[in-house]
């Protein structure tokens, strides 16, 4: 690291957790500041978490104090008081620890040019965690601006072990020039110990998340010092937490931590953990990043890990010391998940991690950023284009698209003369872009950021007219809250809460009893990666591995082999059979849940047109199961990849995916005001609905920038079209069709989810009529 710094090069350091990455990142800075004078800001440190920035500050001040250095270190996040923020601009510390969001706001201020002129280094921590997201897009654009303000700036990226450091070097470097980055690989410490929990050679048929093993997990917790129990979603966190407490005979202190809990609640749990007052904590990805939470000696992963990189990173949370092996125990939810767990363990052992999904930068993020830059200082469009193009995610940005983005940012993108007086950005006689009014800069600061939360309501404990009087427990999404009535109970933060009333954006609750609902959150489930999918197929076909598997799994595979067929290494197995007067079709695509969900939509649409009368479908990471009144005699015909684009375009346009994506790009792109968290416009409905705006745009401005941006997001993120397209090609070329006499072993997990999951995607209209009939029937008094 010191060598790279001395040579004036950028650097990317990859190292396992606990290897002292952060300190290594700061070493060149400390060395420079110790041996020379430097006025003003010298080094910027960017972390994805506010708490991490605070943590690092604490960790830095120790060696600085020990070395007797007079170096000033401060943090700047959304939590920093405004007077300190003002002082930081006027008299900055030498090292400033901040977040991407706070950096963006800082760079939108006119003082930023002076403040950043002397910056020598910018360190980005946990780069792998957010680099490929919109947050990463924004950060990359900010780096481009920093480089312009301080041309000699050295960039340093710190990352956990990743599969492709070269690509990350490209992301980090100005102009995506990976060669300008020195890659420093820290050799790993002890190999992780990953085990799979199997009890009595039995693995369940169906279900996810390993809740069946609560008792055994509790025993593991009791035998360890401090355990983190990772789950894949917030809803499951609540369920698992409850399950564990039901088995908690010794009343060991167990906490829960996820993104919808109030920050105070999360801080309390984190503090308890660090102070050694907890024995276990049930957590989602909210705890994924590298903070030093204390003496964790066991990581338990409930349900399949979905990716080898994720498994490795989570395992790394145990034993923050390099020399001791981190221990991880995977608890599979069903037999497929067992295979996935095994595949993940193999992948980690082989050092085969998951490729990162680099994508072109979001146009909505660019639009937001452009306004922020113009707020800082007048700028020429050409200079602006050159600057943003030097950010790796935007390396492929054409001048044409840039002009569209600029036009949108300035005018909203409409061809209407009447709107000229409302323009946000105006071009002066000197050819430079400026904001039309200072109020727009303030508005930008209030609404900047690339994270868009689903609309949420506050959960407030106790009565009282406002959340000032009650204790805020956290938030639930409006989607779930909309079905709650006074007297209903739901699970939250591990407790059963009963609704006592509503007040604007608040749900008032008290302790409750009985069978509670479990809040549903829109946050996506991560699908199984393609590499793991390949390995799972490999395991199914490698009979030498069967011997080492639990009896249940071995039996399952063996009978499948006899009764039907095992999925091959690269074919698509399709099974059809009749049951209870319905015809079922199982497609084992191993393409991940989103792709299978889209496949289900597509196939049932085609089946409808073919007169096969499809009734519904369910999707999992491994397979798609649909059922119909008529049998599918020629599945191959259904998989024709040629008209895919058109059908998908139609379906996507009508589905909620595009609208959801539009809401996000409309907020990030500055078309719609951001809902401040926990605040709802009460009384009259004066809010602007993104759905209605979407409809108007589709009608009048179908090529609008935000529609394009929404389309890109929906195609990529939500529906995994790429994986689906690949699956269709594969299915068309290499399909194995088995007409089974009855349900096959491999089909059982899917069959068990039918009835539990929502059934297909019938049109809104049909659902509405069905709901009316249902209610009318229920309310009948004869």
């Amino acid at each position, binding site marked *: 690291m010191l060598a790279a710094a001395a040579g004036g090069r950028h650097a990317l350091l990859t190292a396992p957790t606990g290897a002292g990455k952060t300190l290594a990142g700061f070493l060149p800075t400390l060395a420079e500041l110790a041996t020379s004078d430097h006025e003003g800001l010298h080094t910027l440190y960017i972390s994805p978490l506010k708490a991490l920035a605070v943590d690092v500050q604490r960790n830095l001040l120790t060696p600085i104090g020990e070395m007797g250095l007079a170096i000033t270190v401060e943090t700047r996040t959304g939590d920093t008081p405004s007077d300190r923020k003002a002082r930081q601009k006027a008299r900055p510390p030498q090292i400033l620890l901040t977040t991407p969001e706070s950096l963006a706001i800082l760079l939108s201020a006119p003082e930023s040019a002076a403040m950043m002129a002397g910056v020598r280094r910018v360190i980005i921590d946990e780069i792998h965690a957010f680099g490929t997201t919109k947050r990463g897009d924004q950060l990359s654009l900010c780096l481009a601006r920093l480089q312009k303000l301080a041309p000699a700036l050295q960039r340093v990226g710190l990352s956990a072990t990743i599969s492709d450091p070269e690509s990350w070097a490209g992301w980090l470097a100005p102009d995506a020039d990976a060669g300008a980055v020195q890659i420093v690989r820290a050799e790993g410490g002890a190999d992780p110990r990953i085990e799979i929990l199997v009890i009595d050679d039995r693995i369940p048929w169906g279900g996810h998340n390993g809740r069946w093993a609560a008792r055994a997990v509790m025993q593991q917790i009791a035998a360890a010092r401090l355990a983190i129990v990772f789950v894949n979603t917030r809803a499951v966190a609540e369920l698992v937490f409850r399950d564990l407490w039901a088995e908690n005979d010794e009343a060991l202190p167990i906490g829960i931590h996820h993104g919808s809990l109030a920050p105070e609640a999360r801080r309390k749990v984190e503090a308890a953990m660090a102070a050694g007052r907890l024995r276990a904590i049930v957590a989602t990805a909210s705890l994924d990043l590298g903070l030093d939470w204390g003496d964790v000696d066991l990581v338990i992963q409930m349900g399949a890990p979905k990716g080898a990189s994720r498994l490795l990173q989570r395992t790394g949370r145990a034993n923050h010391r390099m020399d001791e092996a981190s221990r991880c125990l995977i608890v599979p939810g069903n037999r497929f998940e067992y295979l996935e767990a095994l595949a993940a363990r193999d992948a980690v052992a082989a050092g085969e991690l998951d490729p990162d999904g680099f994508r072109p930068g979001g146009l909505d993020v660019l639009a937001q950023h452009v306004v922020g830059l113009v707020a800082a200082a007048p700028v020429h469009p050409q200079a602006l284009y050159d600057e943003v193009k030097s950010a790796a995610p935007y390396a492929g940005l054409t001048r044409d698209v840039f002009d569209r983005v600029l036009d949108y940012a300035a*005018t*909203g*993108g*409409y061809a*209407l003369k*009447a*709107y000229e007086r*409302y323009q*946000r950005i105006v071009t002066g006689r000197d050819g430079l872009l400026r904001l039309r*009014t200072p*109020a*727009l800069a303030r*508005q930008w600061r209030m609404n900047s950021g690339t994270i868009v939360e689903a609309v949420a309501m506050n959960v407030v404990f106790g009565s009282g007219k406002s959340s000032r009087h009650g204790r805020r427990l956290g938030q639930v999404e409006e*989607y779930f809250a*909309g*079905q709650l*009535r006074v007297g209903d109970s739901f699970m939250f933060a591990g407790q059963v809460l009963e609704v006592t009333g*509503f007040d604007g954006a608040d749900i008032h609750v008290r302790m409750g009893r009985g069978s509670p609902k479990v809040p549903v959150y829109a946050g996506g489930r991560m699908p199984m990666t393609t590499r793991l999918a390949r390995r799972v197929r490999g395991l199914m076909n490698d009979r030498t591995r069967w011997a080492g598997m639990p009896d249940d799994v071995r039996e399952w595979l063996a009978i499948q082999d006899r009764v039907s067929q095992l999925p091959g290494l690269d074919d698509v197995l399709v099974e059809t059979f009749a049951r209870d007067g319905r015809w079922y079709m199982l497609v084992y695509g191993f393409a991940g849940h989103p792709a299978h969900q889209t496949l289900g939509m597509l196939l049932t649409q085609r089946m409808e047109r073919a007169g096969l009368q499809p009734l519904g479908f369910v999707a999992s990471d491994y397979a798609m199961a649909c059922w119909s009144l008529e049998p599918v005699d020629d599945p191959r015909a259904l998989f024709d990849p040629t008209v895919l684009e058109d059908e998908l375009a139609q379906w996507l346009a009508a589905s909620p995916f595009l609208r959801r994506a539009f809401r996000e790009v409309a907020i990030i792109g500055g*078309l*719609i*005001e951001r809902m401040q968290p926990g605040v709802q416009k009460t*009384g*009259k*409905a*004066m*809010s*602007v*609905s993104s759905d*209605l*705006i979407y*409809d*108007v*745009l589709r*009608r*009048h*401005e179908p090529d609008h920038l935000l529609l394009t941006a929404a389309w890109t997001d929906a195609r990529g993120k939500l529906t995994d079209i790429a994986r689906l397209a690949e699956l269709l090609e594969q299915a068309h070329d290499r399909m194995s069709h088995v007409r089974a006499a009855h349900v096959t072993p491999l089909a059982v997990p899917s069959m068990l989810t039918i009835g539990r*999951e*929502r*059934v297909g995607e*019938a049109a*809104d*209209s049909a*659902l*509405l*009529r*069905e*709901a*009316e009939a*249902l*209610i009318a029937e*229920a*309310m009948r008094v004869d």
Partner: protein
Amino acid sequence: MSVSFSFAGEACQPLASGALWWPAESTLFVADLHFEKASHQAARGWLLPPHATADTLANLIDAVEATAVQRLVCLGDSFHDRAGPDRLQPETRRALMMMTRNLDWWWITGNHDEDAAAVLGGRVMREARLGPLVLRHEADPADATPELSGHFHPKLVIRHRGRHIARRCFARSATKLILPAFGAFTGGLDVADPALQAALGGPAEALVLDGGRLLRFPVGCGPHA
């Protein structure tokens, strides 16, 4: 393909656009047009698509042409703010003024626009009576006379089979009928919201037009609520 329901002994036809047609009086009712909402927001830095007003007007013209209307009543908040009429595009202004000349046009004043629409022709009043009905912008809980109003932008929110469906609806109780917002950009208020329930003052139902059918949902109770 028209559906109809009875309110205060009068046959009324709800239209898909959110208007209400009263054949006996050849009158069309619309509420909460919120003309020039987009330009109002644009002036504040939120560049919403400017087409909403034109769309709303087009829907209004469609409704007028589809019925043998002689009188058109706008139940308040016809403009998003008092200065709205000044921001109208010339063509829109002309079209509106032609309509106010050719029809018996009533602007009921709302809380947002008050009497701003007067410049465009037609009659402006806070409240009115028409046959057995009283017409006002916001429902008056103290008045037991059968009443037609707007203001609340009612919408039905249903969660069924894991899907969340929201539709503009008419909300009615024994003596009160609240129209949905006719304007293109106006968000809605859940019909189950306490404010709306209070306004309706008793057992109520939400009426949604779907395809050619009128669907009815009891409000404030039942598995969907």
